């Protein structure tokens, strides 16, 4: 049986293509059943996220398998096949395994090292398991993909440093304040990035939240959303007396906080440190403020710079991760090879023969000296018993049956057979 993957992701397909072929969670079972009933696809898993749609499958023959899955995609989503052809990629064999491992360990993600994809992959696998659309091959493959991803996470620093504005802001806040739960935070203005950073600070423990905005209604709205207090825009500088972290993002064309103003506040708050993130363009906070003691000001470029450095570091770590992927591919392919009939039959015969010889020797020793004829006939007896017992399973393994992989796996387990190349599997 062959493993293949057909799919598209953020690199090969624009959003308008991806959204057309994304699988709705409610229709996932229906989709997997359709594939199952195609007669060509023996096992399948559908992974559908906002950045990728991929079908992992085990098929007897690659050609018909690919065709059938492509047809399924266009008919299920009601799009012409040509529409997908430009975006779809197909990997088979070792390449398919590599692709899956790279996806699982987020080497193939838009942001390398992001943690969500592994969870999404696990969910997809769970769904396939409960739908019974997978078998021995994909089950093993998925488990190996998850363990590979975990190995990469622990052995490399691929997911260590912050690579988004809001993560970088929280990382810095923690290095300035240690425990964020005792700190207060003010959001000045609004905007997607600022709100995201605000939310991230709150999930990291900040409890006291102030919100201010030129439009009072907007301030009230955001205050309600963050369980904070709205502060009139004219008064926000006074409120800085009780604020430790500030995120500023307004459309003002000038500085709304000058060095002298904050200097006075700092004196009044007895120099308790203040961390200011100014993500507005043009800048809203006087850059000279960073010269004040115990004040740490970061603007959008400063944060962007940090992220860039961190991304470069991740890229370096990703190289290590790729090496781990290659190792794990080898180990999986060895396992898969062991699932072919010939070595299993040989191993089964050897095992039976071993037992036969050992038992025969024991009996002959017990019986003592004997005529050659008698020994011959006892030996003949053992040989024929073994052959009779072994014949049906051997025949079944040799037949080109539907569930051959499963049967091989079971036989190996039942007779505790060690196939030569099945030794790298740690599980």
């Amino acid at each position, binding site marked *: 049986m062959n493993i293949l993957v057909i799919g598209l992701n953020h690199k090969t397909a624009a959003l308008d293509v991806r959204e057309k072929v994304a699988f709705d969670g409610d229709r996932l079972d229906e989709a997997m059943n359709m594939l199952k009933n195609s007669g060509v696809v023996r096992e399948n898993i559908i992974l559908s996220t906002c950045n990728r749609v991929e079908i992992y499958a085990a098929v007897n023959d690659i050609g018909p398998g690919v065709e059938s899955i492509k047809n399924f995609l266009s008919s299920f989503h009601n799009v012409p096949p040509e529409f997908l052809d430009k975006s779809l990629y197909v990997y088979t064999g070792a390449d398919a395994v590599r692709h899956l491992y790279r996806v699982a360990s987020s080497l193939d993600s838009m942001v390398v090292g992001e943690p969500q994809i592994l969870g999404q992959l696990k969910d997809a696998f769970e769904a396939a398991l409960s739908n019974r659309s997978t078998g021995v091959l994909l089950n093993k493959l998925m488990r190996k993909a998850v363990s590979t991803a975990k190995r990469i996470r622990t052995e490399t*620093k691929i997911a*260590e*440093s912050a690579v988004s504005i809001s993560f970088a802001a929280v990382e*810095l806040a*923690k*290095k*300035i*304040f*240690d*425990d964020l739960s005792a700190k207060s935070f003010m959001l000045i203005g609004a905007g997607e990035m600022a709100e995201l950073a605000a939310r991230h600070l709150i999930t990291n423990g900040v409890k006291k939240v102030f919100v201010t905005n030129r439009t009072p209604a907007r301030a009230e709205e955001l205050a309600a959303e963050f369980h904070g207090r709205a502060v009139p825009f004219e008064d926000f500088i006074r409120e800085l007396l009780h604020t430790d972290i500030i995120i500023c993002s307004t459309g003002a064309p000038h500085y709304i906080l000058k060095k002298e103003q904050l200097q006075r506040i700092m*004196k009044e*708050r*007895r*120099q*308790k*440190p203040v961390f200011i993130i100014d993500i507005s363009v043009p800048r809203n906070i006087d850059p000279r403020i*960073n010269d004040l*003691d*115990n004040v*740490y000001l*970061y603007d959008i470029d*400063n944060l962007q*710079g*940090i992220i860039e*450095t961190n991304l470069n*570091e991740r890229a370096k770590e990703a190289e290590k991760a790729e090496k781990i992927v290659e190792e794990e591919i080898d180990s999986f392919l060895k396992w898969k090879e062991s699932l072919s009939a010939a070595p299993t039959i040989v191993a089964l015969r050897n095992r039976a023969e071993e037992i036969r010889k050992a038992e025969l020797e024991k009996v002959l020793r017990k019986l003592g000296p004997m005529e050659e004829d008698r020994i011959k006939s006892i030996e003949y007896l053992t040989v024929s018993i073994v052959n009779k017992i072994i014949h049906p399973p051997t025949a079944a393994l040799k037949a080109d049956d539907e569930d051959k992989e499963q049967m091989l796996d079971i036989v190996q387990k039942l007779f505790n057979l060690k196939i030569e190349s099945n030794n790298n599997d740690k599980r």
Partner: protein
Amino acid sequence: MLQIEINVLLFELALTFYFIAAITGIAELFRGKKASSGATRYLAITGFLFHTANIIVRYIEGGHIPVTDMHEAASFFSWCVLVLFFYHEFRYKMGMLSSFVMPIIFVLMISSAFFSREITTLDPVLDSHWFEIHVILAFMGDAAFAMAFGIGAMYLLQERYVKSRRLGDLFRKLPSLQSLDEINFRLIVLGFSLLSLAIITGIIWAHSAWGSYWRWDPKEVWSLVTWLIYALVLHLRVTVGWRGKKAAVLSIIGFAIVIFAFFGIGLLQKGRHVFL
């Protein structure tokens, strides 16, 4: 005779382990992103065990706390710093602390190694419980200032990373500014309290031994200077909020004076703190 050799051997062993610990500690600063291996800590613990044994042997031999010559004083000083270091290392589990403290320990110990290691007897006039209380308070106080110095240096380094917006690997491994600042403050409070008590017990002891409270001997003067400096540090912090960078700089200056009072006076002049 044999005991002298044992205490010298123990001292050399302690010094060797502290030396290696200082090297590994400094190496940790440049180890990139890798987390601390803990090697420095275990080397320090091993050295500390030998060191403690050395002090016990000298205590038994001399019959008093071994602080009556420069060799003993510097060695006992490092021992007190290590006690505080282990407390902070295990209580707060701060990253990189050993990289800053172990070099200080090594410098103190190597200076101790330059002085004569003969065990001296204590003038019977001085031999009272006040002696033990006074020296333990004084040495632990100085040790707290030494720790505040190390923490202050960590603060300045970390603050430079945050302020300059260049966040290296070390930035990730160093503790947060707030916890460094708080621990620095707590150490100065501790050191200041111990120093105050040491001065008070010293006055009482002086009176019972010599009949006079205070004689402006250089050691006494410099203790007073140290006391005033740290009183100022605490005062500025509480009233005008001299925290963070300023507090860190002050704790470094303060410790420079402590070190001068500790070694400088002892080498330059002879007062009634004859041994130091």
